[in-house]
């Protein structure tokens, strides 16, 4: 499932003969809801591998942006282009997303993974293998038969993550995945993300946890009022942010 020697994911050209998904280009992207402009003429280009963190104050539009590039909602105007192809359902199926609250079905932990694989048309025998691999990856191999919703918050989120990974996505999107998770599970999840990145999967993570971003991110996209204010390598963002908003944010202040 996660094999560093396998042909690379998002930016390798030979995955099933389909084109690579990177670069991701967003051009004049806008999204309006209830008469309010949430994303306001946003431009962005992501072409480097690794983990990209999207940060910004509450209400900046981070979660909405993630859902736009995953195809869960449609933009009011503008373009979303993955590897030269306009966003469509087929592209969405090459991605997977982990939500802030783990959404698990009323079945066992193993069944949750199996169900997701079934949706992708994976055969039963192959499913069994991937389910086993996924549970081991999450450290949940003894809890496979437990009702998923009885697991602790951290266990549930780990399960959500490996469920997403079992689909072998080329891009993994995460929306504040450890916001309500205990430190031990947070550590486990971050370790998994770092390993995942090494196997060629592009990771885009929305996080408000500055420490987490420092630990994980290769580059940082800083959002404010629905626009990209900064986009640069993580190290430079954390030491020499260019915008007033980012400086205020990193200092722990309220960015208005």
């Amino acid at each position, binding site marked *: 499932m996660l094999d560093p020697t396998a042909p690379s994911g998002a930016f390798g050209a030979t995955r099933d003969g389909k084109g690579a998904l990177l670069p991701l280009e967003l051009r004049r992207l806008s999204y309006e809801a209830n008469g309010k402009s949430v994303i306001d003429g946003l431009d962005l280009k992501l072409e480097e591998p690794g983990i990209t963190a999207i940060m910004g104050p509450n209400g900046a539009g981070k979660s909405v942006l993630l*859902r736009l590039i*995953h195809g*869960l909602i449609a933009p009011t105007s503008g373009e979303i282009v993955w590897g030269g192809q306009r966003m469509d*359902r087929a592209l*969405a*199926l090459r991605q*997977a*997303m982990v*939500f802030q609250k783990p*959404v698990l*079905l*009323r*079945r066992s932990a193993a069944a949750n993974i199996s*169900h*997701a694989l079934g*949706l*992708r048309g994976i055969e039963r025998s192959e499913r069994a293998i991937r389910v086993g691999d996924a549970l081991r990856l999450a450290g949940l191999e003894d809890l496979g038969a437990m*009702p998923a*919703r*009885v697991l602790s918050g951290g266990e549930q989120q780990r399960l959500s993550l490996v469920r997403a990974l079992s*689909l072998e996505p080329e891009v993994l999107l995460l929306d504040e995945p450890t916001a309500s998770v205990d430190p031990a599970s947070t550590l486990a999840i971050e370790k998994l993300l770092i390993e995942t990145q090494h196997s060629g999967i592009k990771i885009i993570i929305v996080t408000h946890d500055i420490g987490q971003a420092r630990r994980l991110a290769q580059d940082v996209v800083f959002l404010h009022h629905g626009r990209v204010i900064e986009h640069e390598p993580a190290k430079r963002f954390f030491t020499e942010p260019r915008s007033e908003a980012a400086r205020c944010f990193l200092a722990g202040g309220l960015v208005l």
Partner: protein
Amino acid sequence: MTDLIEAFHTALRLIATLDPDLLGIVLLSLRVTLTAVAIASLIGFPLGAALAVYRFPGRGTLSAILNALMGLPPVVAGLVVYILLSNAGPLGVLQLLYTPTAMIIAQVVIVTPIVGALTRQACEDLLEEYDEQLRSLGASSTAIALTLLWDGRYRLLTAVLAGFGRAIAEVGAVMIVGGNIDHVTRTMTTAIALETSKGNIALALALGIVLLVIAFAVNAALMGVRRFAQRFAYA
């Protein structure tokens, strides 16, 4: 008063010895209602799920109608079915009046809205939680509907038990479309009405006790299902 006590003892004896008349009536009632509930579920489950998942014009109206039909007085359902199945009516050629099939049809009309509306509600509640995640996983609307139906299985079971309870206790509709014919369309409820009107309190009581036991059992099953589901967070 002594008459009543005597009748009560006779009733218990009829039950204990599995009196064949009593048994025949009970089995017919169960067969009619179980069949009707099965058919109503086969219609109601997909109908409820479809109303929750698919977007189409008239969806809101159809949902409102289904909800309203939950309150359809059973005897009115019987009247409508009677008019349809009578030889003077449009479906008279089917020759179904005064048969158990007619009673099943009437009960299907009564139970389907219950199962359908409760299924729709259950699926809508689940959809609120699951919608984004399932779409992210790439599920089609049909796949989502099927997922919701299985995930909501305990609530669906509750809906089925509610429908069963309503149907087995009903007397007006099955009387009208069945004709209360001895050994053919005489159910527990219509028999109780008849035997009481003949002054045969003992047999009526026996049937009443059996019906009560069934009703209580269904209720206990309902509560048991809920508690079981909650324990595993499957509710």
